[in-house]
Every structure is written in C-alpha cells, then in structure tokens.
C-alpha cells in the first residue's frame, strides 16, 4: 500500500509539470500582459520596457518558464506583480474559504444523495423513486450560478434569512460563518448531489439484482441487514469514482460561486489574477488546484482498496 502511494505521488510529478507548462504558456496567449494591466491608461513604451526588464518579462518565454520552475521547485512561487505579496501566502489566506465551501458542498450533496438514491432503488417505481429521479434531473440541469442568484433573490433580498455575500471566518464566529456559507454550499453542491444520487440509485439497482443478494435473502437476513451489510458496500464502488470526478467540478464551480457570493476564496483570487495578467499568482493558483485534484484522485484509489478486496496495491 505504502509503495503504491509513493508510486502514485511520483507519478503526479510529470502530471504537475505538464500542467505547469500549459498554465504558463496559456496565460501568456491572452492579449496584453502584466505591464499593460499595471500601467493601464498611463501606458507608454518606455515605461513598459523598464517594467518588463524589472520583472524579467523581456527574456525569451522558455527561459522565463525555467526560471519560474526552478524557483517553484525551491518552494518560491514568486510575488504577485500587483500586491507584491508572496503568492504562497496570498493563496494560504484564501484557501480555507474554498476548502470550507468544497467541504460543505460535499457533505450536503452526499448526505442527501446517498440515502435518497438508496431509497429510490429499494422502492423502485414508487412515488419516492419518481420524485428522486425528478429532483435528480432538475439538480443536474440547473446551473449553479443561476441557483445561486435565485437564492440571493429569495433568501437574502425577500426573506432576509441569509446575507447575500461576504465572509466571516469560522474561528471568529462559527454561527455567522455558517450563515454566510450555507447558500453558496447548497448552490454549488446541488448538481454534484444530483449526479451522485443518480449514480447511487443505478448502482444500487444493479447490486440488488445480483445473485449474492438473492443468496443473502435465502440465508434469511433481515431487510435492514440485506441493504446495509450486503448491498451498500458493493454499490459504493462506482459511486466513489463519480465522487472523485465531481470533486473536480466542485473546484471549478467554486470560482463562479465565490464570485456570486463575494467569497474571498482561491477562485476569486484566480479570477483576479487572470484579469490583472498577474502571471505568478495565476500559475500558483492553477498548480495548487491541479495538485488538489491529483490528491483527491489518489484518495479515491485508496478508498477503492478498502471497498473492493479484488483491488490490492
């Protein structure tokens, strides 16, 4: 197992290098650079040249890339061109917000999706099943930004239950923090929940049709034991795969949701970095998100080994 984890981590290195190449060159394809963004309307050639030389932007792209890569390997992600703040500390400030958003969305989605999907499968073709399928379709179809906007309109402006945007740290005031985070989490997690619910339902249905379930019934196990001991663990195997992929969706979706609810998270930071052509910050953010995704996938594969005894690393 340990050997496998180490192997997987080593395998992540080429992936991350590939991502760093894409991140580095893609952002430079966007018209305008840091200097045009910095100078804005006061732009003139002379000053631009001086600034470019100062930030090392006058060197050939490939050289720039390797300088950056060398620093990153040494743990130095550079400074933001705008705020002069070190990229790592800027990300570290914003990361807890995004992590909390993802975590809450994740919990919300699985706590609703897995029980609902399971019940829908057990009571196939019942009112509950049809209701769950309808909700599932609705959840997948509704875009998160639209749902977020509706939440603000309804719960913030009309009912005034929750604040429409902003953030208070959990350590400062947990209750207020939750009030700020509930709407964004639900808006972000709904689509994920819908996908997971549908997957749980179909996977459960498949498992319930298996011979070993018939055998378990013939053994005289109670209905509860049949579902919880014999069916659930088997039905989780595909669900975990989907969950892993959906975490990527949560990461991407958090950019939009953070913007809508004015949450100071990594998504907002990346957006800001793109607008400002803040190369160092942008590259740092992308690399961080990519590493996060690689780690999540590693976790998924480790969970597999627990669920499925046929998989041994």
């Amino acid at each position: 197992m340990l050997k496998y984890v180490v192997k997987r981590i080593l395998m992540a290195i080429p992936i991350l290098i590939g991502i760093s190449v894409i991140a580095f060159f893609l952002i430079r394809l966007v018209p305008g650079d840091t200097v045009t963004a910095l100078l804005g309307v006061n732009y003139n050639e002379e000053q631009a040249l001086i600034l470019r030389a100062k930030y090392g932007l006058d060197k050939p792209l490939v050289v720039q890339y390797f300088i950056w890569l060398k620093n990153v390997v040494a743990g130095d992600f550079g400074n933001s061109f705008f705020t002069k703040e070190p990229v790592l500390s800027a990300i570290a400030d914003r990361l807890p917000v995004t992590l909390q958003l993802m975590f809450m969305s994740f919990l919300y989605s699985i706590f609703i999706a897995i029980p609902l999907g399971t019940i829908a499968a057990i009571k196939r073709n019942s009112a509950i099943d049809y209701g769950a399928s309808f909700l599932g379709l609705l959840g997948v179809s509704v875009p998160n930004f639209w749902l977020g906007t509706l939440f603000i309109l309804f719960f913030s402006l009309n009912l005034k239950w929750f604040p429409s945007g902003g953030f208070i740290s959990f350590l400062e005031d947990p209750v207020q923090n939750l009030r700020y985070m509930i709407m964004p989490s639900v808006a972000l997690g709904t689509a994920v929940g819908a996908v997971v619910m549908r997957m749980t339902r179909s996977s459960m249905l498949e498992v319930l049709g298996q011979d070993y379930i018939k055998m378990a019934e013939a053994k005289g196990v109670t209905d509860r034991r049949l579902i919880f001991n014999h069916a659930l663990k088997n039905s989780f195997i595909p669900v975990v795969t989907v969950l892993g992929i959906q975490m990527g969706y949560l990461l991407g979706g958090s950019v939009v949701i953070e913007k809508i609810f004015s949450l100071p998270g990594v998504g907002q930071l990346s957006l800001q970095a793109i607008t400002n052509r803040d190369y160092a910050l942008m590259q740092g953010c992308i690399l961080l998100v990519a590493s996060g995704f690689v780690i999540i996938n590693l976790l998924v594969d480790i969970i597999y080994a627990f669920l499925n005894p046929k998989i041994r690393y």
Partner: protein
Amino acid sequence: MKEVVLEVKNLKTHFRTRKGIVKAVDGVSFKVHKGETFALVGESGCGKSVTCMTIMGLIGRKKNEVVEGDIFFKGRNITNISKEERRKLRGKNMSIIFQDPMTSLNPVYTVGTQIAEMPIIHEGKSQSKAKEIAVNMLKKVGIPSPDKRVDEYPHQFSGGMRQRGVIGMSLACNPELLIADEPTTALDVTIQAQILELLRKLKEDTESAIIMITHDLGVVAEVSDSVGVMYAGTLVEKALVKELFKKPLHPYTKGLLKSIPKPGSKERLTIIEGQPPDLHNAPKGCKFYPRCSYAMDKCREEMPKLIEIENGHKAACWLNEVNKNGK
C-alpha cells in the same frame, strides 16, 4: 417411512405480467422425507426453480406473484405465516444452493464472514464462535487449510471451492431441508462429481432432506432416491429412481431418457421435437400433447391427473389409463 420434512400440495405460482398470467407452477404436489434426496427434473423454464423459490418464500412477496396451494414444513402449514417467521425459517431450517457459485458469494466479504453470518443471525452466536463454526464448515466441505481459507475473499477461491463454500454456508445451521438448484451445472465435469459426492456424504451425516433441481438425468441417477419430472409447470411423472429409469411411463420421460447419449452406442440420439409451450397460453389439455407422438383426441381436451399406476410410480398420461383399461 421416515418423517415427512416437506409436503407440497397443489402448489401454484402464477406471475401477472402485461402479456397475461404466466402459470410457472401449476398444481404441483410432492413429499420429501428425512434423509431423502428428491430430484426435480425438467428442461429450462419448466418451473422447477420457481417451485423451490416459492418453497423458500423468495417468490410470492411481490404484488404480481400469486401463490396458491399449501406448503407444509415438518407438518406445519407455512404458506401464510408472516414474512418475519418465513425469514427465520430460511437459512436455519431450509436453505438453498444456487447454480452459479461464481456469483452467489458477496465479493466484498470474506468467505468466512459469509458463513459465520448464518449462526450469528439465526442462533445469536458471538463473532468468534461463529468464525469457529465457519472454519469447521469449510473443513467439512473439504477445503484444505480451512483456518487460513476462512479469511480469504471469494475471488481467491476457484469455482468448485466456491460451491463448496456455498454448501458450507447453507449447512452452517444444520437445516432440515436443503434445496440444491442445479448445483453442478456451472462446474466442469470432474468438479461436478466431487460436489455430488460431497452432497451425498453430507446428507448421510446430517440426515437432512435434499431437493435436487437438475436437468441432468445423470445427476439424478447418481444422487437421488426419488424423482419428479416436471413439464410446463406440472409434475408429469413421479417415481423411485430405479423405477423411473427401468420403466418410464410418461412419453416425455421416455423422450428425455432416449436423448441421453450412451457411450459406445452407434444408435442415433432421439430428440423431442418442438418447443415447450408458451406459459402465457398453454394448451388446454395435456401440455405435452403438441410434442407427443402418442397424442390422442382426449389429450387435447382434458388434462390428465397425476395418478398412481403401480406401487408408488405415478404418471400423468391418458395412455396409462388406456393400457390399464385394455388389460
């Protein structure tokens, strides 16, 4: 005669489908005694598995499944007892082995856990005691180094070993009745013989009654004491094994026996022409008459009853009546 473990009286299992009612089992009666192996023979879809699933109580719980008739287990009518009481019988008093050992074990639990589950749920045994029973059962069914194998997963077992495991699981609570639903069909021939031998040995040890479902007359001759031949949801012949092989009375049984290849014989194999009837609209009279070479007018009109022809040998065929009257 020994104690009757199971008696089935005029059992009917019908399924309501969109195309109409399917009479999968239509009036089957038989008895199985303690220590007896009763074989149910017939081709695919003749209702042998449905009969046994109904006896187990695994069919008849859904709205579209209609069960009529009576099932007596050790003298007690269990047809209409509560779901919960029926569940308690399953596994403890009657258990079943399915055809495909590759799929009848849960892939995410060890074989030992799955065997141990039986004494845990039915006899309230502790985990460690139950595991001891599991090791014993594996030993009993002839699995080498059972104390190690008990912690292995089904995918680490070969097909024959898995079937042994399933048999061990089924017998963990010493049930009075064991139903073996084509237990050797999915196995290769050498393993088949081993499994049959094992079942015979276990039956001698435990004295439990066995219903052996099969379409293989070789298996019937090998292990069973008495035989019921099923065709399109009804029993068409019932006899002791020797009697049946010596003197089959129903044309269908005769056809079945003729279709077994004999080693060394140059004779062509005879087949039974045609297909079993569609159970949505089975023929009115004898269900076999469209395929029967002896069919008479009466066969078309009226269904023959399963009646005793000579010392316990029963058949449902008008032909026997004619022969009798002819004498």
